[in-house]
């Protein structure tokens, strides 16, 4: 019904999570009209259940270019946060003062050190500052650090943001700049004729000259319809939230951080659990809690208020996917495992490429072609 009243859009983005939203935000300068099509409240939505790290140090093992791409995004983040504040009045609480991976015992230290050295030695990695800290050095960044943490990997590039405020800031910007956000418009079928895409939804057909598939875990199915074969592999993460406390001014850690409003997030497992995001499980929560208390013993006094599961959007190999369809020119696909971290480069680097109609050659390594290499 309502769809009949919509004009033909310049760009339609399928998916209104952090990936679709950062792209729509960045496309505004290069597109006359933009629609963001989304599902309803029951959808799988990593953007509402994540840990909110803007994180470099663990990215790119097995694909050096991903490390470089992530580093670029961490550099662009201050610009994105400043723009959002200016435009929407929403402070997304970006803090980039460095981040830590706490390590417990010699085995963890040696294994991690070998891993980081291997990561940094790969072709395509742009070298950046990092250090192995001993307990004493790490404790100077995390007041009250537990004695079990005998080392930590630190880089100055890592940080945190409030991911819910980020999503709200994007959507507030849409309201103010004429981007049409269309919930309950789950796309079921995509066709292209005469250079125009038709997106069928339960609320009618939306037409657009260009489309961007940013539908999270549904990108596999939708990609097939425009000739892109993308094997998806969801990965579950469970998170525990502790009550608000006064700020401890601790450097954020990869699985333990304090939010700008005082809550603590204890994260986050990496599980192969199919699409089961409706349960939390005691063995996993117990492990997360145990490690958090060993990291910061004072937290044993702080109350847990809730826990949840969410599914990471992940291509089979865990690396991002960026490609324009060869069979359906004008259809782009964007999938990534760290949509918070990459939001800045998605908005400020990738969106302008999509607006211009072609992805830069440096993004070739991120195409789905890597999944179709003949293996003998």
């Amino acid at each position, binding site marked *: 019904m309502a769809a009949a009243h919509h004009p033909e859009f310049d760009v339609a983005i399928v998916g209104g999570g952090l990936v679709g939203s950062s792209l729509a935000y960045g496309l505004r300068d290069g597109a006359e009209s933009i629609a963001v099509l989304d599902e309803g409240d029951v959808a799988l939505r990593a953007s509402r259940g994540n840990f909110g790290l803007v994180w470099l140090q663990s990215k790119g093992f097995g694909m050096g270019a991903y490390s470089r791409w992530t580093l670029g995004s961490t550099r662009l983040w201050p610009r994105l946060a400043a723009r959002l504040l200016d435009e929407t009045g929403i402070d997304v609480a970006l803090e980039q003062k460095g981040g830590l991976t706490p390590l417990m015992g010699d085995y963890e230290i040696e294994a991690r050190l070998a891993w980081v050295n291997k990561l940094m030695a790969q072709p395509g990695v742009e070298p950046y500052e990092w250090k192995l800290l001993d307990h004493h050095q790490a404790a100077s960044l995390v*007041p*009250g650090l537990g004695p079990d943490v005998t080392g930590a990997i630190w880089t100055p590039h890592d940080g945190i943001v409030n991911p819910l405020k980020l999503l709200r800031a994007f959507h507030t910007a849409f309201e103010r700049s004429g981007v049409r956000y269309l919930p309950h418009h789950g796309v079921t079928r995509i066709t292209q004729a005469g250079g125009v895409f038709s997106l069928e939804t339960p609320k009618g057909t939306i037409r657009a000259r260009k489309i961007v598939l940013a539908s999270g875990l549904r990108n596999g199915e939708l990609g097939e319809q425009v000739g892109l074969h993308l094997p998806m592999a969801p990965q579950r993460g469970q998170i525990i939230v502790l*009550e*608000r*406390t*006064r700020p*401890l001014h*601790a450097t954020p850690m990869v699985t333990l951080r304090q939010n700008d*409003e*005082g809550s603590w997030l204890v994260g986050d497992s990496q599980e192969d659990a199919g699409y089961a995001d409706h349960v939390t499980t005691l063995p996993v929560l117990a492990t997360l809690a145990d490690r958090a208390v060993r990291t*910061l013993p*004072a*937290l044993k*006094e*702080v*109350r847990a*208020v809730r826990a949840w599961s969410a599914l990471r959007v992940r291509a089979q190999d865990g690396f991002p996917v960026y490609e324009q369809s060869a069979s359906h020119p004008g259809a782009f696909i964007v999938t990534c495992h760290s949509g918070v971290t990459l939001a800045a480069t998605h908005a400020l680097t990738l969106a302008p490429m999509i607006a211009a109609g072609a992805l830069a050659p440096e993004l070739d390594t991120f195409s789905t072609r890597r999944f179709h290499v003949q293996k003998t």
Partner: protein
Amino acid sequence: MFRRLEAAGTGAAPGRTVRISVDGGAIECREGDSVAAALLAAGMPACRDTAVSGTPRGPFCMMGVCYDCLVGIDGRANQQACMTRVREGMAVVRQTGAREVSA
């Protein structure tokens, strides 16, 4: 705004009196009261200020889920007043902002 059942004329028998202090001042409550009920009956509906905006809040759900009733009890911050029974000599303090985490 709130009245005890016996004061409302329901015929409920009053329980034994228990004395607690709230921010140093003594109040009388009844055995079996939750701290939240005792505060409401004593005419103190706003037992805390929120951690983010500093807005006054008071017990809302009375069953342990909303966390709007947080108070300090006997030196421990952020206790749920609705889930804690009054005890003779208990010291309750208004919770202002977020609790400390001792590092």
